C-alpha cells in the first residue's frame, strides 16, 4: 500500500513499544507477516493476521504466521468483543473504503487500536498538488491511476474523525522518513502512528 522496505519499518519499533509481552494481537492487512513475526520475537504475542492477497497469505503460512484470508471490507464480523489487546492496522487504513466502519470494529474487537498511515498533508505532497499533480513519493509510490489507496486524508482529518466518533487518541508519533517530527506534524510528517482507545 505504501513502500517501506523492511529495514526501514521504523513504525515497527513504535508499535512494539506499545505492546506488552504476551498480549493477544490482531494485525489487519498483515502482508507477509513481518510485523507479527517481529512482535512474536520481541514481545511473545499471540498473534493473528488478516490478509486478502493470496500470495501474501501463502507467504504468511510459509513463515508460520496465523493468517486469515478475509476481506476487510466485510468488517470484523465473527470476531468477539475485546477478543484482542491490540488491533493493529499498519499503513493500510488508506487502502480500505470503509474507514469509519473499520475503526469502530477495531475498537470493538480490540481493547486498543494502533493505526499508521501516510499523511497526505505532508508538505512535499502539498507542493506537488500546488504544482498541479498528485503526489508520488517513496511512501506513496503509486500513480493516481494505479494506486491501491482509496482514502486520502491528513493527520488533521484523521484526528477530527476520532473526535467525531468519540475515539481517544492515547498516543501519537509522527515521522519524516526515520526522523521523529514533533512540531506541526500535519505539515512536516510523512507517516503518522496512533494508539487509540475508547
Amino acid at each position, binding site marked *: 500500500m505504501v513502500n517501506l522496505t523492511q529495514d526501514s519499518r521504523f513504525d515497527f519499533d513504535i508499535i512494539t513499544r506499545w505492546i506488552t509481552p504476551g498480549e493477544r494481537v490482531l494485525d489487519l492487512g498483515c502482508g507477509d507477516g513481518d510485523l507479527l513475526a517481529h512482535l512474536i520475537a520481541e514481545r511473545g504475542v499471540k498473534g493473528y493476521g488478516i490478509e486478502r492477497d493470496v500470495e501474501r497469505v501463502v507467504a504468511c*503460512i510459509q513463515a508460520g504466521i496465523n493468517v486469515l484470508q*478475509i476481506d476487510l471490507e466485510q468488517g470484523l464480523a465473527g470476531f468477539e468483543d475485546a477478543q484482542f489487546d491490540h488491533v493493529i492496522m499498519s499503513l493500510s487504513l488508506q487502502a480500505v473504503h470503509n474507514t469509519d466502519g473499520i475503526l469502530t470494529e477495531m475498537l470493538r474487537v480490540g481493547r486498543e487500536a494502533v493505526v499508521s498511515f501516510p499523511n497526505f498533508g505532508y508538505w512535499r505532497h502539498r507542493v506537488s498538488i500546488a504544482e498541479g499533480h498528485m503526489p508520488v513519493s517513496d511512501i506513496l509510490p503509486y500513480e493516481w491511476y494505479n494506486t491501491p489507496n482509496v482514502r486520502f486524508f491528513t493527520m488533521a482529518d484523521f484526528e477530527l474523525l476520532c473526535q467525531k466518533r468519540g475515539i481517544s487518541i492515547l498516543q501519537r508519533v509522527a515521522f519524516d522518513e526515520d526522523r521523529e517530527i514533533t512540531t506541526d506534524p500535519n505539515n512536516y510528517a510523512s507517516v503518522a502512528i496512533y494508539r487509540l482507545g475508547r
Partner: protein
Amino acid sequence: MTTSASIGVVAPQRARFDTPLAMKSGGVLPAYDLVYETYGTLNSDASNAVLVCHALSGSHHVAGVYADDPKSVGWWDNLVGPGKPLDTNKFFVIGINNLGGCYGSSGPKSINPATNKPWGADFPFVTVEDWVDSHARLADRLGIRQFAAVLGGSLGGMQALDWTLRYADRVRHGMIIAAAPKLSAENIAFNEVARQAILTDPEFHGGNYYEHGVVPVSGLRLARMLGHITYLSDDAMAEKFGRRLRHGEHKFHFGVDFEIESYLHYQGDKFAGFFDANTYLLTTKALDYFDPAYDYDGNLQEAFGRAKAKFFITSFTTDWRFPPARSRELLFALMHNGRDVAYSELECAAGHDSFLLDDTHYHAALRAYFSNIEV
C-alpha cells in the same frame, strides 16, 4: 524448482481387528477389516505419520497406481508423492477405507459372520466418530502414537476435526478443507433426496439386494447425479457445458438434449456401476449426524475447548455445498480457544470439487503449511 513425481506402483494392505468395536449408534461390530495404503517411510520415532481421510465416495487409494491397472490413479495423487505438497520423502502417509465402505474394509457387502450372508441392511449405522475410533486402532497397530497431521476434504475434513477433538493428544495438526462443522438443513435435505432415490428403487429390497442378485442402479444413479450438481458451481457448469446441445438442435424428446444432461448421466451410470448403495446410505447419514457441538448445547466454541492441535483451514469461494462462511465458523470457534490457525479462502471456480484439484495457490498454501510441520 521442486521436482515431483508419482509415488508409482502401490498395493493395498488389510488389517484384521478381532476386538469388537462399539459404535455410537449402539451397534457393535464383533470383528472387522480395514483396508489401507501407505506411502513413504515411517521414521524411527514414528513422528512423521499423516492420515488422509476420505470423503463420501473416496477410498484408501489416495496416491499412486496399481500394477495391473495404469488408469487406477489415487484420488489425491496430485497432492501426495515425492516432492509433492504432501511430500512422501518427508512424511509417512496413510489412506484408510472407512468402515461401512465398499472398497474392502468391512461394510454392508461383507459377510456377517452371524448369518454367513452379506450384512446388507443389518450393518450397523456408522458415524464419523466410529471411523476415527477405528483409524486410531490401526494407528496403534502401526506404532503411531501421534499423527504429525490428519487431513481431509469435505467429509474427510470432519474426520480430521473429530481427531483433533476426541484424540487431542494424538494429532499435532488438523487440516480441514472445504468442510463445515456440521451440515446445514439444506445439506441434509439434499442427502435425504439422494437416499429416497435409493430407498424407493424397487431393486433395493430393503437393503438386501445382494441376495436377489440385483443392484438399485437407478436410485444410486439419481443420488449421484444430484450429488454432482452440488459438487460443481453455477460458474463451473456454465463454463464447462453452458447450454450446449448434444445434437446441435432441440430434439423435443426426453433423451439427452443438453451437454449437462449427458454429463450427469455419465457420472451417474459410472458411479452406479461400482459403488454400493448401502454404503451411500450409511455415509450420507454419517454426514448428517456429525455435530461436534451436539453434546455442548450447540456451542461450537465450548466443543472446541478440547482441541490442542494447530489448524490449517481452507475454503473455496464457489463452493456452495460448504461455503466459506461454514469454514469461518470453524475458524472463529478455534480462535476463541486460542488455537493457532491458518485460513485461506481461495478463488477457484470448481465449486466443492476444488479441493481435489491442483489450483496453484491452493497447493502453494498446502506446500507451505506442510513444509513447517516438524517431524
